[in-house]
């Protein structure tokens, strides 16, 4: 991927997924520690297992259009993550597929509609709202920032970097929140003071996209 290139092709999606795998591997223990405070202490391991399965499929060869790649990623995550992140991240990639369609490359604006559809799918699947202390607290601000940056004329790498910054801010903003969804909600007020592990892995997903779009470090 050439830095500054505003076309999203299969190679960029693959680079995104490989970078997300690198981040979830590097931070598996961290994600599990976050989940130990709020949930059942398996989020890091689950994401590690899921992304290793995704990368194994990529290593076998990437065939087909962007929709086919997204569907394959979705199916792999659904079958291998195990926890709530499986159906949620699976839904995200599943809903991206029809937007990207039978293309092998799309422009930045067309691409931006795909994660937007994916995030809408996650919101519907999880029946969560902003501020419920979930992954959508990172994903929704990221989608907003991506759209705003592209509308303002930013290139895709810059727009995705702003989206990643928004996702990180959204993740950090989950710290004082009281969880209203998932196992963390059983803790009630005691869930405040901990970062949401799903928001943390979601911020990694968007950061990985920005890094992939920026291309290899020179």
């Amino acid at each position, binding site marked *: 991927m050439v830095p500054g290139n505003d076309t999203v092709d299969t190679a960029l999606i693959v680079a995104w997924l490989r970078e997300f795998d690198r981040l979830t591997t590097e931070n598996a223990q961290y994600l599990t520690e976050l989940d130990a405070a709020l949930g059942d202490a398996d989020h890091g391991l689950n994401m590690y297992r899921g992304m290793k399965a995704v990368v194994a499929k990529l290593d076998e060869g990437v065939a087909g259009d962007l929709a086919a790649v997204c569907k394959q990623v979705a199916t792999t995550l659904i*079958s291998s993550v195990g926890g709530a992140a499986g159906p949620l991240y*699976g839904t995200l990639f599943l809903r991206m597929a029809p937007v990207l369609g039978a293309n092998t490359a799309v422009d930045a604006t067309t691409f931006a509609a795909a994660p937007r559809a994916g995030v809408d799918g996650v919101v519907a699947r999880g029946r969560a709202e902003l501020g419920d202390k979930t992954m959508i607290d990172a994903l929704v601000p990221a989608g907003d920032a991506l759209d705003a940056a592209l509308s303002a004329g930013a290139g895709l790498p810059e727009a995705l970097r702003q989206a990643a910054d928004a996702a990180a801010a959204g993740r950090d903003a989950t710290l004082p929140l009281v969880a209203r969804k998932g196992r963390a909600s059983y803790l009630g007020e005691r869930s405040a003071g901990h970062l949401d592990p799903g928001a943390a892995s979601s911020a990694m997903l968007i950061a990985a996209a920005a890094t992939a779009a920026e291309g290899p470090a020179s």
Partner: protein
Amino acid sequence: MTVGLVVVGHSRALAHASVALVQMMIHGSGVPITVAAGLDETTFGTDATAIADAIAAADQGQGVVVLMDLGSAVLSAELALDLIDDVVRDRVVLCPVVAAGNFFTS
């Protein structure tokens, strides 16, 4: 033909044990019961694609009741409904129960 049952849980061993117990009690009833539990024999988790397959296997045209434990099993079962045929989906009922060990005793 009867309504089919699908048992969805995080532990394959627990789900199979629950079903074995029930099969003993309802012997010869002909009720199809399928299991979609665990990622494999020993890894806890739920898999929407496996649930979709289990629904198809349990469906005799009279409908399917999906019993699942709480939490991510509910999300996976709901995603499974997106993955199956429209005709089958219309005769599937999702029924969350407390936990895999309590499928048939609660």
